[in-house]
């Protein structure tokens, strides 16, 4: 009898360990022999902890399961898929999953994250084997041809970045994985690291072969201790099996990998601040140029990519650039793991090709708001992304289409707010957050954010509103154009979009906000 109970942090936070213990104890009491697998999460997070049983016809899901349900589940013979009020049906047939296009997350929730055998049985290391048979430039070409763009938010073409590192001569090059996933509404990196760590190791190894690097670092935020634990174990397993180290898969090539833990600084998600932190300094943003691809970690050429970018490389190598490029629209190729969060009934991870709309995600997948109230505003792309009103929910999710809306698709994090939200407070929070997390190097961000909070307070308290609105617009303009990185440079997105689309929350009539 094979049973699956996710070991993903979201499931753990909802009692998955207690559930596992209760199931084991009950099975023991009834003298039933079971095998418990701690898989990753399938991404239907409102159903966590969601357990699955393996039957000859396929896996059957039950959820959300509490420890108090265990006895009744055994009574209902759930081990053979028996009827129970928590029975959801065949996992693969569940609408939320069936409608997805899972490429990067193909294995997450299905395999045991730390079983190399499972990984190999599900197309694992096929991409690496391909890469090992190719010259470095051909690997870079394939990634370029796939159309893959940086999934951390900036959407810079991954292949172009790699090409720069490949062409730069140096005695040492590095691969750095940016796993400092600090944006609210994002958990795809965490789910992938916890649910399929080998794919990230494989992606980083392919990157190393492509540019000639021999050392890699995974910079993971300290808020993700569970992901750090799993990655460290996976690296150990991969090294013992010869997939990391001095002779990768018998090729004679070397690649070493090490996990480094962040320390609670949001700005370290910015690539140059992250490199500073890795070098042992405060996470202060560096001026660009020079680009990290030329002068990166310890002054050496460095590929620095987000978790999802790197984890998408193995399937591109295994199935070909054309296969991947076939998904998506315009210049946004492939799939994006959308993360549906906040005030939503059915929150979770939805991997879909670019081009789906916010409305489809929120209603067809998400089932509307959790509170049952009308959805008012949606923030897409993290704390530095714009708030979108209903008039913009039908725009296809594509990097360029969002730019045209003066919004940010970013990493595909979506935070839903119902009609009780006050956008002037959320705008103030955006400035406040920037003030807390600014690295302090450039003035527009360091001072501008504090002034922004003060100005917004005056607007909220109706003091000298017309002059303060002008000041806010002016201040945002300075931050947009004068900041060194996205921290200060994009904080105006949530602030000005809130003001523009929800003027009534600032005590303005529609016309009053026009000049904003």
């Amino acid at each position, binding site marked *: 009898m094979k049973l699956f109970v996710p070991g993903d942090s*979201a499931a753990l936070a909802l009692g998955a360990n207690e559930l596992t213990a209760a199931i084991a104890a009950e099975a023991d009491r009834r003298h039933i022999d079971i095998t418990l697998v701690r898989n990753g999460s399938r991404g239907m997070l409102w159903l966590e902890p969601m357990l699955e049983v393996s039957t000859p016809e396929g896996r059957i899901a039950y959820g959300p399961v509490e420890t108090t349900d265990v006895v009744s589940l055994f009574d209902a013979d759930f081990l053979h898929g028996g009827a129970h009020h928590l029975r959801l049906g065949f996992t693969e047939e569940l609408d939320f999953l069936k409608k997805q296009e899972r490429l990067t997350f193909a294995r997450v929730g299905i395999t045991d994250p730390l079983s190399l055998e499972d990984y190999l049985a599900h197309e694992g290391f096929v991409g690496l084997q391909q890469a090992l048979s190719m010259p470095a430039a051909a690997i870079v070409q394939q990634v370029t041809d796939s159309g893959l763009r940086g999934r951390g938010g900036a959407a810079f073409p991954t292949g172009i970045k790699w090409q720069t590192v490949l062409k730069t001569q140096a005695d040492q090059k590095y691969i750095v994985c940016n796993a400092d996933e600090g944006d609210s509404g994002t958990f795809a990196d965490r789910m992938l690291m916890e649910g399929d760590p080998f794919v990230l190791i494989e992606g980083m190894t392919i990157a190393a072969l492509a540019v000639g690097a021999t050392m890699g670092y995974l910079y993971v935020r300290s808020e993700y201790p569970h992901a750090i634990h799993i990655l460290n174990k996976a690296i150990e397993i991969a090294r013992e099996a010869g997939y990391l180290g001095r002779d990768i898969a018998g090729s004679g090539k070397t690649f070493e990998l090490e996990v480094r833990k962040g320390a609670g600084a949001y700005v370290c998600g910015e690539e140059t601040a992250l490199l500073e932190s890795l070098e042992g300094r405060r996470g202060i943003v560096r001026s660009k140029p020079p680009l990290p691809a030329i002068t990166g970690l310890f002054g050496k050429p460095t590929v620095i990519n987000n978790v999802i970018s790197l984890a998408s490389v193995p399937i591109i190598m295994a199935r070909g650039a054309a296969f991947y490029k076939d998904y998506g629209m315009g210049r946004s190729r492939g799939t994006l793991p959308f*993360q549906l969060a906040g005030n939503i009934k059915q929150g979770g991870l939805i991997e879909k090709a670019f081009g789906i709309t916010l409305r489809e995600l929120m209603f067809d997948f998400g089932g509307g708001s959790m509170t049952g109230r009308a959805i008012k505003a949606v923030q897409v792309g993290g704390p530095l992304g714009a708030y979108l009103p209903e008039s913009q929910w039908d725009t296809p999710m594509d990097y360029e289409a969002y730019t045209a809306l003066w919004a940010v698709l970013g990493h595909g994090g979506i935070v839903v707010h119902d009609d009780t939200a006050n956008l002037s407070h959320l705008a103030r929070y955006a400035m406040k957050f920037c003030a807390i997390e600014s690295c302090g190097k450039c003035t527009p961000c360091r001072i501008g954010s504090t002034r922004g909070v003060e100005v917004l307070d005056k607007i909220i308290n109706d003091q000298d509103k017309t002059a303060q609105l002008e000041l806010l617009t002016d201040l945002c303009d300075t931050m947009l154009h004068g900041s060194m990185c996205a921290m200060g440079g994009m904080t105006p997105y949530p602030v000005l979009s809130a003001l523009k689309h929800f003027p009534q929350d600032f005590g303005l009539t529609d016309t009053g906000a026009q000049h904003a």
Partner: protein
Amino acid sequence: MNLPCHNDPIAAIIASHQLIPGALLPILHAIQDELRFIPPEAIGPIASALNLSRAEVHGVISFYHYFLTSPPPAHQIHICCAEACQSMGSERLMQHAKSTGDFSVHPVYCLGLCANSPAMMIDDQLHARVTLDKFDRLTEMLGDQS
């Protein structure tokens, strides 16, 4: 100069980490893992081992929210106050937490549990979909342990 003593955990940590590239954060993490905070007397030995000034080491410790310079209380509660948790009432949860007992409560900006908001962490344990009742239940158990 203070010579490292064999039963001095700080000296042992420095000795085992100082040669790795970018050693400062790993050293600080190892000290905090061992002692639960970074005592001021660690700064001098770290600075001399890494050929940095004391100011540079202090600057790094004070820059990162995660590093503590004094011993934390027996139990720490971190409540996520980022946007997704705000949309599900984390502000109310924060107020409730502050008003119901003398816990050490701090805001944290995203625990990555945004589809199961509001979220919080008690010591190292994550909790999601935290209602006020659930908060009381969880913290009551905390009181029993201490």
